[in-house]
């Protein structure tokens, strides 16, 4: 993402706007002129959702400013037991200088991202085209949409399910299909086209105990590309589950074997040497949930040893900064929205106790997670893991949720401490955090939401000393006349890698119907690591403005 030119070519931007203005205007006019309801005759249904965004970016990297127009159009047609869906995504960059130094950053993209035909019977469903798939709790396979991270990976192929009162069967196979424009880097990402096939079966016994098994086979493309750090050639995995929800019990065990191209330090001690090898992954997970009067206790334990699978990248893409796209995710046993690097290898447990304080209409929850240095598993040859030198992790969280005014006023407070001890001489990491939020009704149609969050980080390095930084968010949102939402917020970060300390921003959203809205945003927002459900990505800082119009017909 390097540009030869150093300043914005405004003439080119104006020319671009003029060039595309008629098209955009026609699009708007056509859409607005369409009837503002789904089209429904007898058993036919046509459902159209569109999202049009115009964005102006001022990159923190020092690259010239640029603008873009993004359109996402989803068309779903249903008739009787048939349903078809197509999602078209297009992005057009504007205002870019003529000369570029990189291969294809900011490349315009127009793709039919998702295409699916579905047939639904009483007990069976069949998909042809794009579909999501999860096996167990995601240790072996977890393909689903994660908007917050810009991830939306499907398999393009076929899938069939059968489900009756006791038996559940699934079989699937397809080639991986990712979102082709990475909104974190604006790099074009080619579909990996890794082949993933698998099956799952479960049987429910009369007492409610459900026992299942699943299997996965994957054949990876681009297996001769050393730049894929752990370029896999093929992988297979099997797993078993049991679930007895009546007693709150769930257990899962998985085994994964992947033949890879791993790198090692060569004999001369300087170069890297690539050799084929086999990496085995293991995962075991157990959770139990019980209620004792007003007290609910959740206990979870897991042992994982590198069961992670990622998409292989096309030649040249990883060197351009395309991030690995995960096929798997595992239970974190920690607070979900904290920005914590997920472990490949971990042995740990969490106990969470919630108390329903009924007289006060409140819930108090205390949670503690403890991780140990996991024992080595056989067949492990991959040399790099950020948690390899882990001694232990301790993470304690306390939260209070208070409802007042017949549940119309909610106050929440959370505080926690997380310590990650490494074996010397690696630095230890510490994190203190606190957050509070309130949803306050002011009058019918009017309300104020307040959120404050603070995180205090420190790295204690035995050689370099202590490095500390603070990050957080203050946000206030006003709802006016029910349909208008005005928000003002400020992120802050004292981390030395940030150019700014404060990142103020504001937004206005008008919900003009149940299904339509226009939202405008302007200002800065902090980038950095963002995690959802055990999957993390590093997102860039944002400096600029955007307007988004969403309508579901």
């Amino acid at each position, binding site marked *: 993402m390097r540009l030869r030119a150093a300043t914005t070519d405004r003439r080119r931007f104006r020319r671009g706007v003029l060039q595309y203005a008629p098209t*955009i205007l026609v699009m708007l006019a056509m859409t607005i002129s369409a009837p503002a309801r789904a089209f429904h005759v007898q058993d036919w249904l046509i459902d159209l959702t569109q999202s049009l965004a115009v964005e102006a970016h001022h990159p923190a990297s020092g690259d010239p400013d640029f603008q873009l127009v993004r359109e996402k159009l989803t068309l779903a047609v249903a008739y009787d037991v048939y349903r078809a869906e197509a999602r078209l995504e297009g992005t057009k960059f504007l205002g870019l200088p003529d000369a570029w130094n990189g291969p294809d950053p900011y490349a315009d993209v127009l793709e039919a991202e998702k295409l699916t035909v579905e047939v639904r019977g009483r007990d069976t469903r069949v998909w042809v085209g794009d579909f999501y798939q999860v096996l167990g709790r995601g240790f072996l396979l977890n393909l*689903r949409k994660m908007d917050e991270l810009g991830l939306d990976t499907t398999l393009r192929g076929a899938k069939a399910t059968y489900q009756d009162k006791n038996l559940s069967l699934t079989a699937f196979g397809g080639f991986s299909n990712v979102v082709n424009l990475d909104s974190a880097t604006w790099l074009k990402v080619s579909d990996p086209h890794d082949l993933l096939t698998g099956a799952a079966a479960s049987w429910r016994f009369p007492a409610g105990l459900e026992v299942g098994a699943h299997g996965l086979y994957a054949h990876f493309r681009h297996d001769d590309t050393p730049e894929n750090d752990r370029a896999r050639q093929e992988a297979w995995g099997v797993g078993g589950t049991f679930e007895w929800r009546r007693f709150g019990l769930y257990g899962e065990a998985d085994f994964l074997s992947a033949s890879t191209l791993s790198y090692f330090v060569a004999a001369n001690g300087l170069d890297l040497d690539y050799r084929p090898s086999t990496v085995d992954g293991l995962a075991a997970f157990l959770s139990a*949930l019980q209620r004792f009067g007003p007290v609910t206790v*959740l206990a979870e334990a897991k042992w994982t040893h590198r069961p992670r699978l990622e998409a292989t990248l096309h030649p040249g893409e990883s060197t351009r900064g395309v991030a690995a796209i995960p096929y798997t995710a595992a239970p974190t046993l920690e*607070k979900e929205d904290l920005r914590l690097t997920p472990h490949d290898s971990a042995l740990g447990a969490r106990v969470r106790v919630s*108390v329903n304080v009924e007289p006060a209409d409140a819930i108090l929850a205390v949670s503690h997670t403890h991780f140990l240095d996991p024992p080595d598993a056989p067949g492990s040859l991959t040399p790099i893991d950020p948690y390899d030198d882990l001694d232990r992790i301790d993470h304690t969280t306390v939260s209070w949720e208070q409802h007042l005014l017949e549940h119309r006023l909610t106050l929440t407070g959370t505080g926690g401490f997380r310590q990650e001890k490494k074996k010397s001489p690696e630095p230890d990491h510490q994190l203190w955090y606190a957050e509070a939020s309130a949803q306050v009704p002011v009058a019918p149609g009017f309300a104020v939401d307040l959120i404050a969050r603070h995180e205090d980080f420190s790295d204690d390095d035995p050689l370099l000393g202590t490095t500390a930084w603070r990050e957080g968010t203050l946000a206030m949102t006003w709802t006016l006349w029910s349909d208008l939402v005005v928000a003002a917020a400020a992120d802050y970060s004292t981390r030395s890698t940030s150019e700014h300390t404060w990142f103020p921003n504001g937004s206005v959203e008008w919900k003009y119907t149940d299904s339509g809205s226009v939202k405008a945003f302007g200002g800065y927002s902090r980038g950095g690591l963002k995690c959802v459900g055990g999957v993390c990505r590093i997102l860039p800082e944002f400096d600029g403005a955007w307007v988004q119009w969403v309508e579901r017909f």
Partner: protein
Amino acid sequence: MRRHALGFLTVLLLTACGAAGARLSTEAPAGVVGLADLVHRDVFGEPIPRAEIADAKVVMIDFWATWCKPCKAELPLLSDLQARYGAAGLRTYAIALDEAGSAAAVQEYAESNRFAFRVVHDDDGSLARELNPRLEMPYTLLLVGGRVVHTHRGFSTADFPAVEAQVRALLETP
């Protein structure tokens, strides 16, 4: 020509839909949802009978997640609505969009709060794909006869009287 591909295709699709709309009735509300085909069990493994959904006069679906603060502020209010209007024919399903790995956390939150409605975990995203493809949350839908008649994106205590008024009006409609 390539430059205009996005615009042309978009216009083509919109034109096709506009033309279709001119021929088709626009009186019917959006969305025919085979909810019973999509929801089989709640988060505690209890089967959800088809009749429970089919017999409901109004079905309310709310998308939430354990890490979503406004969602968690809204759920007790939805629970109140279910408690007050359940006898009149309201059935509420709170669909958790948490990842598969967070199933235990979803169960724990539902267990400790003892909501008056059923909680369902959409661990593979199949419900969201049909009803909430943009993964908005909180996102509340009101359905009558399997058709979506009202939707609410986001949550504010200011909005909630309007939601209750819509539920009441739908339940009172003969």
